């Protein structure tokens, strides 16, 4: 090994260590931001090192490869501009989609690297079978990367509303998936041990792309955060496989790290929703529209004016605000913060009850409220606050639905068993929503027809602004 090669290994090691610390730091609130920056620094190191030395790590490098520098420079520039501006511009509520797209890009890159490697190898040794470990890793990188690419695009589409967010199923869809798998396995075996045919390899990749769509379409839009997390782990595995193919330990380690941490993270997410991963992937939960029609509609709901609601709160001793997905949609966090300040100045004790899966991504509410500068110590986790609703004067539910649905306590509903916030134990419950729309699970919510509950209909943002005005006058 040349000195340059040895140095390259050491750079890989340093980069790997920064990635480990990046993940470690990201897992704790105090150090999270440093962790991200550290990861970026490690990435910069390895990218620059590779750029300036890449002939060193690829012993069979084309002598004319300096002619290829433009690919890296042009590609890097285009990618950096796209990545930078889309990340900077994206709205807070659209971040999950954004992460999906970035993840898909990584998966696509991994698949393409596998394809280019395969093509190049066939050019150098036409018709020659590749060593088994090598071709297995190549096929793995190609299939997992491709699934991650198209799966992420579907996830993005569902969250963005470009694709129907309800589970899309057609008769025999399971059979199609099964057949796809069989054909993919057949092709893989053929290419690996019988004949390294380029057209068949490309067919393999195309079918893998279709598989990605086929696997994610039947999943409801609201489960997409979990799907994104899973696809993120997939991309990690694809990257690890590529690292194996290229004998590059940095890719191997970084990919494996993400594969492992992404898997456990996906588990933690489904656990917070009290569901299993299998259930998320195959149950077609989150049926939205359909079930909604069946549910609500008929009961009389008690309405309340913003003024009356304001008075109730201003003269209460203790108000607990329960934010949900609707607050995010309405971007009402600013006015909510104002409402909190006002109430506190009137001597009311105000707290926020944060359900672990409120909103559409874990930590969604924390992020939004922090954005609006709500002090961290006013945010209480479910377990912390659930016993305190009994001596709460007003529970103000802003665009939350499933996380306060008492049906969860009974058998037989899709959310049975999910722990919920005990708002129905408060003296008064005021619910802000636009109309009779259901939440993510698409089921009716008996809380709204509870005698303690009063509804304040309308988009959450103007509603909260009206409450602010009301409290000022009260």
């Amino acid at each position, binding site marked *: 090994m040349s000195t340059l090669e040895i140095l390259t290994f050491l750079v890989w090691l340093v980069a790997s260590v920064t990635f*480990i610390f990046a*993940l470690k730091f990201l*897992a704790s609130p105090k150090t*999270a931001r440093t*962790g991200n*920056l550290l*990861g*970026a620094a490690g990435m910069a190191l390895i*990218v620059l090192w*590779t750029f300036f030395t890449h*002939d060193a790590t690829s012993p069979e*490098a*084309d002598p004319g*490869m300096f002619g*290829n*520098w433009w*690919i*890296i420079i042009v*590609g*890097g520039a285009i*990618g950096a501009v*796209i*990545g930078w501006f889309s*990340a*900077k511009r994206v709205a807070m509520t659209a*971040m999950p989609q*954004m*992460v999906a*797209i*970035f993840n898909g*890009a*990584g998966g*696509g*890159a991994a698949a*393409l*690297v596998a394809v*280019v490697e395969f*093509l*190049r190898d066939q050019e150098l040794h036409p018709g020659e079978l590749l060593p088994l470990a090598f071709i297995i890793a190549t096929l793995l990188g190609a299939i997992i990367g491709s699934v991650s690419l198209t799966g992420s695009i579907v996830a993005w589409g569902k969250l963005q509303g470009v694709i129907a967010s309800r589970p899309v199923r057609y008769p025999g869809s399971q059979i199609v998936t099964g057949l796809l798998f069989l054909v993919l396995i057949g092709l893989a075996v053929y290419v690996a041990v019988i004949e390294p045919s380029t057209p068949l390899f490309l067919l393999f990749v195309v079918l893998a792309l279709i598989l990605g769509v086929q696997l994610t379409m039947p999943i409801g839009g609201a489960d997409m955060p979990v799907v994104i997390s899973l696809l993120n782990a997939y991309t*990690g595995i694809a*990257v690890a496989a590529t690292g194996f193919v*290229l004998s590059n330990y940095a*890719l191997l380690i970084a990919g*494996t*790290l*993400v594969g*492992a*941490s*992404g898997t*456990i993270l996906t588990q*933690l997410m489904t656990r*917070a929703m009290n569901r299993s991963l299998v259930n998320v992937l195959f149950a077609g939960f989150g049926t939205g529209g359909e079930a909604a029609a069946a549910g609500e509609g008929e009961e009389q709901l008690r309405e309340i004016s913003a003024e009356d609601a304001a008075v109730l709160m201003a003269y209460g001793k203790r108000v607990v605000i329960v934010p949900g997905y609707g607050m995010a949609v309405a971007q009402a966090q600013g006015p909510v*913060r104002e409402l909190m300040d006002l109430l506190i100045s009137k001597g009311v004790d105000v707290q926020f009850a944060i359900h672990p899966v409120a909103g559409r*991504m874990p930590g969604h509410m*924390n992020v939004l409220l922090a*954005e609006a*500068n*709500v*002090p*961290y110590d006013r945010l209480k986790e479910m377990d912390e606050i659930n016993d305190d609703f009994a001596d709460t004067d007003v529970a103000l539910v802003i665009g939350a639905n499933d996380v306060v649905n008492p049906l969860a306590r009974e058998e037989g509903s899709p959310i049975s068993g999910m722990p919920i916030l005990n708002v129905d134990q408060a003296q008064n419950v005021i619910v802000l929503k636009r109309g009779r729309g259901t939440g993510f699970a698409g089921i009716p919510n008996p809380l709204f027809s509870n005698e303690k509950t009063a509804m304040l209909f309308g988009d959450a943002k103007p509603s909260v602004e009206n409450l602010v005005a009301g409290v000022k006058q009260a």
Partner: protein
Amino acid sequence: MELTAFELLSALFILVLAAFVGYEVVSKVPTMLHTPLMSGANAVHGVIVVGAMLVASTAHGPIAIVLALVAVILGTINVVGGFVVTDRMLEMFKGRGGGRG
């Protein structure tokens, strides 16, 4: 491209150990940080851009060059977008522990 058995086995050891590290390191993450962590991990696998650069440097023929170019673009989007969006998410937490307006 020939991999010796020793190289393979070394890679296997590294893979297993890295999987443990990945698992252990995030197993205690609070719910609040799930999304930033996912996003940060997403940025880390953007290291695939290094793989894209390596195949780009030896690509020849128009097909390989176009594919390599796309791979570099996608990989760079993953890296740059990933770290920037994670940083934006985490910036939101800065006011914590008594953040004033």
